C-alpha cells in the first residue's frame, strides 16, 4: 500500500458521504493531505521522506508492551466501573498508539498537559495508574504532583488546558530554556475541543509568541455523539496554517508514525521553531465514557472497519513478520499485562475512602478562619454521632 492509499484508507468506512464538496468534508483526504504513516494496518513498514525512523527491536518491543499494558489497564477500569467500583471511566480503547507514540516521544524534562483520557500518556510518564483510578472512583480530583513526572493534572473542562500549556511554554521561553538543549510542552485535546474558544486562543497565543508547545489533537471522530462534521468543515490539521504554524495529520493508530511525528515537532519546539499542531487521526472504539451508549448514534459497521486498523495488532504482525520477536515475547507481555491488571484491580478494591475532614484541605495555602470554623463545626457534628446507635 502506498502512502497515498493509506491516507484514503483512514477515512472511516460506514459513514454516509457528505453532500457538500469533498474538500469541505473533514473526514476526506481529497485536497490533500498525506496521512503520515510508517506502519500500515497490515503491519507493513513503510517509509516517509520527512519522518525517517530508526528503531531497534528492543524499542519496538517496548512500545508494543506499553500498548498492550495500557489497553489492559483500560479494560480493568471498565470492568471495575461495571462492578460499581468506579463512578465512571473514560476509555482510551483504539487510541493507544496515539498516546503511547506521542508519550514516548517526550523527554523527562518536557511537560505534558492531558485531558481526562490520556491514560496511555500517563503510563509513559510513569504515573501510577492508581492515581487515575482515584479520580474516577471519586477519591480525589487527581491529586498528583504535576512536577513529579512532568505530567499535569487531568483537565475535565474541554480545551482549558491548551492555555495552561501555552502559558507554561511562555515560561520556558522566559527561563531561557529554548535552544539546543531546550524544553517543550505537549498538550492533548480532542476533535470536539477544537471548537472551544480556549483552544483557538491558545493557538493565537502560541503563534504570536512562537512558544515551544505542540498541540496534539486526537481526532477520534466523535465528541460523545457528535461526529467531526459538527465541529469542522476543514480537516483539523489545516486549521494550524490559518494561525501561522504547521499542522500535520498522522495515522493515530500507527505508533511509529505518532512517535516520529511527535519527536520532530517537539524537537522543533525545543529549538525555538515554535508550535506545531498534530492531528492524530484515530477512532474511539469504545463509548465516550462508561455512561455513554454509542449504538444510539453510530453504526457498528464503522467500528468494524476501524477494528481492522487496530493499533496493537499491526505492531504484533510487524514484529512477527520481521522476526524481531519470538512468540514467547508476546506471551511474556500478556502475562505482564495480566499482572498489572490484577494489581490495578486489587489496589482499587482496597482503596479507602478519604477522611471526611480532608474535604477542607488545600482550598488556599493558608486556611481562613471561616473555613477553620466550618471544619471544626463539621468535626463536632460528626463527633455527635459517636456511640449513638443508628436506628434503621
Amino acid at each position, binding site marked *: 500500500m502506498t502512502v497515498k492509499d493509506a491516507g484514503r484508507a483512514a477515512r472511516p468506512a460506514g459513514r454516509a458521504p457528505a453532500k457538500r464538496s469533498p474538500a469541505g468534508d473533514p473526514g476526506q483526504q481529497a485536497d490533500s493531505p498525506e496521512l503520515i504513516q510508517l506502519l500500515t494496518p497490515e503491519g507493513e513498514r513503510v517509509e516517509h521522506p520527512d519522518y525517517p525512523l530508526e528503531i531497534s527491536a528492543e524499542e519496538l518491543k517496548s512500545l508494543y508492551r506499553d500498548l498492550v499494558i495500557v489497553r489492559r489497564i483500560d479494560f480493568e477500569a471498565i470492568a471495575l466501573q461495571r462492578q460499581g467500583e468506579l463512578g465512571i471511566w473514560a476509555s482510551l480503547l483504539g487510541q493507544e498508539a496515539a498516546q503511547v507514540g506521542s508519550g514516548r516521544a517526550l523527554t523527562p524534562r518536557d511537560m505534558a498537559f492531558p485531558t481526562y483520557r490520556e491514560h496511555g500518556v500517563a503510563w509513559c510518564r510513569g504515573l501510577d495508574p492508581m492515581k487515575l483510578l482515584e479520580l474516577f472512583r471519586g477519591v480525589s480530583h487527581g*491529586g498528583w504532583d*504535576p512536577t513529579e513526572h512532568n505530567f499535569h*493534572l487531568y483537565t475535565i473542562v474541554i480545551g*482549558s488546558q491548551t492555555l495552561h500549556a501555552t502559558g*507554561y511554554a511562555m515560561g520556558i521561553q522566559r527561563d531561557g530554556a529554548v535552544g539546543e538543549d531546550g524544553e517543550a510542552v505537549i498538550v492533548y485535546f480532542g476533535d470536539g475541543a477544537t471548537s472551544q474558544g480556549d483552544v483557538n*486562543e491558545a493557538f493565537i497565543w502560541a503563534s504570536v509568541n512562537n512558544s515551544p508547545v505542540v498541540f496534539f489533537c486526537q481526532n477520534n471522530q466523535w465528541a460523545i455523539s457528535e461526529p467531526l462534521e459538527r465541529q469542522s468543515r476543514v480537516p483539523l490539521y489545516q486549521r494550524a496554517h490559518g494561525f501561522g504554524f504547521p499542522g500535520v495529520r498522522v495515522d493515530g493508530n500507527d505508533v511509529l508514525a505518532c512517535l516520529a511525528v511527535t519527536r520532530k515537532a517537539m524537537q522543533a519546539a525545543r529549538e525555538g521553531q515554535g508550535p506545531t499542531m498534530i492531528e492524530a487521526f484515530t477512532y474511539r472504539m469504545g463509548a465516550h465514557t462508561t455512561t455513554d451508549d454509542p449504538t444510539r448514534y453510530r453504526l457498528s459497521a464503522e467500528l468494524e472497519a476501524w477494528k481492522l486498523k487496530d493499533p496493537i495488532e499491526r505492531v504484533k504482525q510487524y514484529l512477527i513478520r520481521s522476526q524481531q520477536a519470538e512468540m514467547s515475547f508476546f506471551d511474556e507481555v500478556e502475562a505482564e499485562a495480566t499482572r498489572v491488571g490484577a494489581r490495578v484491580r486489587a489496589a482499587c478494591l482496597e482503596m479507602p475512602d478519604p477522611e471526611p475532614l480532608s474535604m477542607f484541605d488545600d482550598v*488556599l*495555602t493558608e486556611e481562613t478562619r471561616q473555613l477553620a470554623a466550618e471544619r471544626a463545626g463539621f468535626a463536632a457534628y460528626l463527633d455527635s454521632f459517636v456511640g449513638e446507635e443508628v436506628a434503621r
Partner: protein
Amino acid sequence: MTTLTLSRALNEGLRKALEDNPKALIMGEDVGKLGGVFRVTDGLQKDFGEARVIDTPLAESGIIGTAIGLALRGYRPICEIQFDGFVFPAFDQIVSQLAKMRYRSLGSVRLPVVVRIPFGGGIGAVEHHSESPESLFAHTPGLRVVACGDAADAYTMIQQAVRSDDPVIFFEPKRRYWDKAEVDVDGGLAAALPMDQSRVLVPGTDVTVLCYGPMVRTCAEAAVAAQDDGRSLEVIDLRSLAPLDTATIFASVRKTGRCIVVHEAVVTGGIGAEIAAQITQECFYSLESPVLRVGAYTTPYPPSRLEEHYLPDLDRILDAVDRTFGY
C-alpha cells in the same frame, strides 16, 4: 510620605513588586506601551521589558489561562482585565481552573496569580464598563478577593497580593483612580495591615457602616455629614471580601448595635447579604435593628444618565442611617 493618585500608587506598588520578585510579570490588554487604559502600568514595560510586561492578544480567557500556565512554571503573573464587564470571558478559567487547581492537586500546586479588575460605575461609561461583579468571585472557594479604597492601601495591597501564594482577585475603584492620598512609599510592607484584615477608617459609636472600594470615600463623607444630625458612624473599610474579617465586623456591631453595608453591587445575593446573615447569627443579641443594605437595585447596570439614581450616594446612606434608628 508622598501624595499620589490611587492609579499612581498602584503603579508604584507594581513597580516595587516587579523589582522585588524577578518572577513577577504583568500581562493584559494595552498594558505595555500605552500603560493601560487607566495608566496603572504606565512606564513599566519601558523599564522592565516586553518579556515581563506583556501586551496580550485581546482574549480574557487566554490571559488567565496562560497566566495559570506561567504560574505552574514558577512565575507570578499579575493580569489586568481592562474593565469589570470584560472579565466574563475569563470567568471559566478563573472559577473552574484558577480557583480549583490547588484543591485538585491536593495542595501540590500553587497559583500565585493576581487578577486586577477596575470596577464600579460613576464615570459616565457605556455598558459593561461600570459593573461590580465581586460577589461572584467571593462566592467561589479557592480565591482571595480584595478591594482597595484609597491610594495608601492600593500601594501596599497590590504588593501583598503579588506576594500571596493564592489567586487574588484585586478590585480597583475606577472612579477613585484620580483621588489623591498620602502614601508611604518607603515604608515597606512590614508595618502594613495584612491584606485580609479590615480597617476602622472612622471610629464611631452609633452605627457600623461597612464598605469597600469606591464607597469608602462616600461613607467617610457620610460620617461627617451624620455628625450634623448628632450621629456617630463607625466606618469600616472591609478591604478583604473573601475571606471576610468578621472579627473586626462583629466587634464593631456588638458596640454599635446597628449596621449598614454599602456597596455599588446589586444587593441581591451580594456581599452585604452574606455579611447581614453572619451578623444576624453571631451578634443577634447586640442588634438594635436589622442589618440594612445600601446598594444597586436588582437591574442590569442602567445607561449612564441614570447611574446617579442607581448608585448609592451620601444621601442614600444617610437615609439608611435614619431608617436604622426607626426600629
